[in-house]
């Protein structure tokens, strides 16, 4: 075998492995959701196709799956929007205005994001109980915004600092206020960065488990990850089929979002802003 063929063979094998390792659990999830028995891999069982688990999750009143989906979408979207709004204004200030302690500010923000969430959750529970917010959307949105803000800020600062200052100066001379520049010039130019930041915040809130577990009590605010984990069978057994069916459906919105925004993320919108 010559070197070229060996190289391409290794490349193909490497590609397949890289592809399979992250996707195997996903396939297993989908198959379990579609199989009548969750232990279809064992010797005495065989794979029997059924949609009954999906049907059970969607149709049964007691599973509250659609309520979880709605809660999750509302909480994630609200967190992402609020986080990006605050972060983009802060990022504009950090990259464009001169004030004392700019670097210290950024480093403190970074340090704050290093706190392990487990160290905060006890206090958060006490706080939200005190406010009477347990089992409400805001009990989740506020911590999620706080939690995603440092990341959003750092991403947007690096994004905004790549936008030429001359655009701001042109905007100022053309009669804009700073806020108008942010809305009319920086937002559209930084759209790919803003969308990807919002997407990251959204996915974080969508996947978050611990805060949601501690701060919600039932389907009126509970999100999908917690909802699915707490699925219970009729006689207390773990209903693997329903869990996997629900998990499969949960991936759909995230995949759709990623596909929609992918195009915006890739778009080189800054092209032609300045020479070069």
């Amino acid at each position, binding site marked *: 075998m010559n070197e070229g063929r060996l190289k391409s063979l290794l490349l193909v094998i490497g590609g397949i492995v890289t592809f399979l390792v992250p996707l195997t659990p996903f396939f297993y999830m989908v198959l379990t959701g579609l199989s009548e028995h969750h232990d279809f891999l064992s010797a005495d069982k065989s794979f029997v196709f059924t949609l009954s688990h999906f049907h059970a999750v969607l149709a049964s009143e007691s599973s509250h799956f659609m309520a979880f989906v709605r809660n999750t979408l509302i909480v994630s979207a609200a967190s992402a929007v609020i986080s990006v709004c605050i972060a983009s204004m802060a990022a504009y200030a950090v990259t464009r205005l001169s004030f004392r302690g700019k670097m210290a500010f950024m480093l403190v923000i970074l340090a704050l994001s290093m706190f392990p969430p487990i160290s905060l959750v006890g206090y958060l529970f006490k706080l939200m109980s005190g406010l009477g917010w347990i089992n409400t959307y805001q009990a989740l949105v506020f911590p999620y915004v706080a939690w995603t803000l440092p990341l959003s800020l750092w991403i947007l600062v690096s994004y905004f600092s790549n936008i*030429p200052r*001359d*655009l701001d*100066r*042109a905007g*100022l*001379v*053309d*009669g*804009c*206020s700073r806020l*108008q520049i942010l809305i*009319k*010039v920086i937002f*559209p*130019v930084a*759209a790919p960065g803003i969308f990807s930041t919002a997407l990251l915040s959204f996915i974080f809130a969508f996947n978050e488990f611990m805060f949601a577990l501690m701060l919600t009590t039932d389907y009126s605010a509970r999100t999908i990850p917690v909802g699915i984990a707490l699925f219970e069978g009729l006689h207390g057994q773990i209903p693997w089929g329903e869990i996997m069916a629900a998990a499969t459906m949960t991936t759909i919105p995230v995949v759709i979002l990623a596909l929609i925004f992918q195009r915006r993320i890739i778009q080189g*919108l*800054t*092209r*032609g*802003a*300045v*020479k070069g």
Partner: protein
Amino acid sequence: MKIVCRHLRKRFLTMRGVVEAVKDLSLEVEKGEFFVFLGPSGCGKSTLLNLTAGLEKPTDGEILFNDRIVAAPKKKIFIPPRERNVAMVFQSYALYPHLNVFENIAFPLRVSKEKDREINKSVQEVSTMLGIRDLMERKPGELSGGQRQRVSIARAIVRRPDVFLLDEPLSNLDAQLRMSTRGELKRLQRELEVTTLYVTHDQTEAMTLGDRVAVLKDGFLVQVGTPAELYEKPKSSFVATFIGSPPMNLILAQVKQEEERVILSFDDVSVVLPPEQTEKIRGMAKEDVLMGIRPEHVTLLEQERESTYSGRLSSIEPLGRETLLRIRTGQKEVVALSSHKHYHLNETVRFFFEPGRIHLFDY
């Protein structure tokens, strides 16, 4: 709009400490004048433009538009750029990449909330003036450098600014386009009769465009005058070498007084100063002076005559119409321009300095 700067200062706090970009600068720009700031990079010329636009606040001093104070830190007055009715063209063009050409030009009008019909009319008008009518639907990314330049000029003039500011607008264009755009800018400025401040490091641009030129160095105003004044009567060796191409010869010479005559000498060359310049040198009262002579005033001779000097040609650079000659004489080198072409390297030539064309500067 007349622009007045009085004792203007601008300090920046940077990582390396305080940098003073503009130092006690006073000048007046007349209404409708094409005024050029010329200087090497870091001389404070762009800062001066930003101060006029209101993009920077001065540390001290005053800026007036006609009789209206637009910036005076002592009196706590600062008018933001949007209330100054200035327009600016940037070296990078700074077009809004997400808007097409029409919307780019219309942007200042949209911000000031003009009616759609008015906007359409104004944009059509300036785009016709600049010959970019068929580019209206394109995005800046789809334009060439010259086209972007036109769009940025159109955006600047569309709302009839009182002051037109240009920050090295031609630097990113290729040589041929630069020359044609230069002529066009001058014509446009004449037509609009708008007070124009133009920043450049290119002395050719400054000389061809400016009604008057201010030469800046290290934040100081070195000299202000018409291009002809700067060329013929430079006040310092800096202005003398910065303006004119190829630059003026500067030669360190010793002053010798002989009764009525004053003689400048370097190596084995002696130059008898014409009577009208002897007064000037007495005022300087120094032994060493810098003698300046422009290459076009160094004349090469066919045969020997009185007060000529000889040297060896160390380099010959044909420029087309003229030839640039470097003549080595002793330790010094003198650059001369000649319309003849029949020179050979290392040839010995005779030359003299046109009397009355010699400049004297402090050493």
